[in-house]
């Protein structure tokens, strides 16, 4: 290991600020409870405990209603700067990112703060919050909507629930197999060395913005 490498691996940069970490974990907790309570609700009589079932349905309902709250709060106000900036980052893709995705990671890529897979994960989860809240509301407050919508909403809620389970399991697998990234979702910071390897374009951007003070 050269002297420079030793030095840069010790330098840490901010990946997720406190607002983002808070929003992530609040969102993760809500998703966790929703997915956990979804199982007995979906499998109806399989879990036959009567009183518990009603309680489970209420928990599922209110966690669902609360689902967009952490994200909305984290996007608002002066504290939401970095969150808004990262949303924009997730939104805008370069040609090389599109190519990287099309070739399933084989095309060369100077990665942004998030790679295209991570970006898709964020977009998907964002869309799911809106869709599941919408379809869930139609299922619960069906009296206020046309009756056929209840059937359609049930179909959509189910189909996307399967997709959510797949994506979230994938997300967790990626997190546990990429310990540095996972740690940064707890502590907020990541080593410059990691950034140079996995998010070179972002590292450049960070360096341009805050010239080294040492």
């Amino acid at each position, binding site marked *: 290991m050269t002297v420079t490498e030793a030095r840069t691996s010790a330098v840490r940069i901010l990946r997720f600020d406190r607002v983002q970490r808070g929003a992530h974990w609040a969102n993760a907790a809500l998703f966790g409870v929703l997915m956990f309570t979804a199982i007995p*609700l*979906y*499998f*109806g*009589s*399989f879990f*036959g405990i*009567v009183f518990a*079932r*009603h309680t489970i*349905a*209420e928990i599922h309902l209110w966690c669902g209603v609360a689902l967009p709250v952490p994200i909305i709060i984290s*996007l608002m106000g002066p504290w*939401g*700067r970095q969150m*808004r*900036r990262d*949303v*924009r*980052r*997730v*939104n*805008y*893709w*370069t*040609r090389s*990112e*599109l190519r990287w995705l099309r070739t399933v990671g084989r095309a060369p890529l100077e990665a*942004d703060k998030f790679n295209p897979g991570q*970006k*898709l994960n*964020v*977009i*998907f989860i*964002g*869309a*799911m919050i*809106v*869709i599941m809240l*919408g*379809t869930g509301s*139609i299922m619960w407050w*069906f*009296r206020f909507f*046309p*009756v*056929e*919508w*209840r*059937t*359609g*909403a*049930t*179909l*959509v809620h189910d*189909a*996307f629930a399967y997709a959510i389970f797949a994506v979230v399991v994938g997300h967790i697998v990626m997190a546990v197999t990429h310990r540095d990234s996972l740690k940064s979702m707890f502590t907020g910071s990541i080593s410059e060395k990691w950034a140079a390897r996995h998010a070179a*374009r972002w590292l450049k*951007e960070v360096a341009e*913005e805050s010239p080294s003070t040492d």
Partner: protein
Amino acid sequence: MSTDAKDVTPVTRAKPVAVGRRVFLGLAGLGALGIAFGSKVQNAVDGALGQGLGFLPFGDHFRIYSITGGFPEVSRERYRLKVSGLVDRPTTFTLADLEAMPKTSFVKNFHCVTGWEVPNVAWEGVKLSHILDTVGVQPGAVALSFDSYDNADTESLSLDQARLPDVIVAYKMLGANVTTAHGGPVRLYVAPMFGYKSLKWLSGIRVVDTVEPGFWEVNGYPVNGWLDGATGPTDPDPSFT
């Protein structure tokens, strides 16, 4: 998605594409289409295949719906079925009374109007027609109104529909006593119609001179809930659909 131009430094000089917004809107659009047309798509597939998309994966499990949010707990001992209205002998039956009547059992699918279906459910009970014969229906009677122990759900059947051989007052389901979640101790099972017609926690049958639309019909479902969507062989009056 929020944008805040002042906060943002361009990420790259090459013109970026707003992929995020497109994928987001695409998914949301797919969801909206599913809500609007999911019911039609399911019906079309049902019609084409002769069976539904709605079989729940991973086993035959019901979704339990309840109007009130809870379930009325009625013990087998305290259960009563009150039959009243245009009948010769208004009668209140106990569960033992019902079980002493001639049994009818069969295996039939339970098809919910929201698209899911549980195949091969074993049912056992007494034919509604037998109960009607026991109490004696008076001339001028046209329909039945059903009440539930949940004090919320109501249902209706025309007299002709009620006399169909696969319309039963069920006390067994899935090979055991009907559980509270499934509407036990006693529920209605109307095999040729969607599940909402099979009222749970049956507490009363009133024989009446007009069809009184039940809870689900007031909320938009057809009074005649035939599985095939037809107006029905026994009650072709289109005003009932």
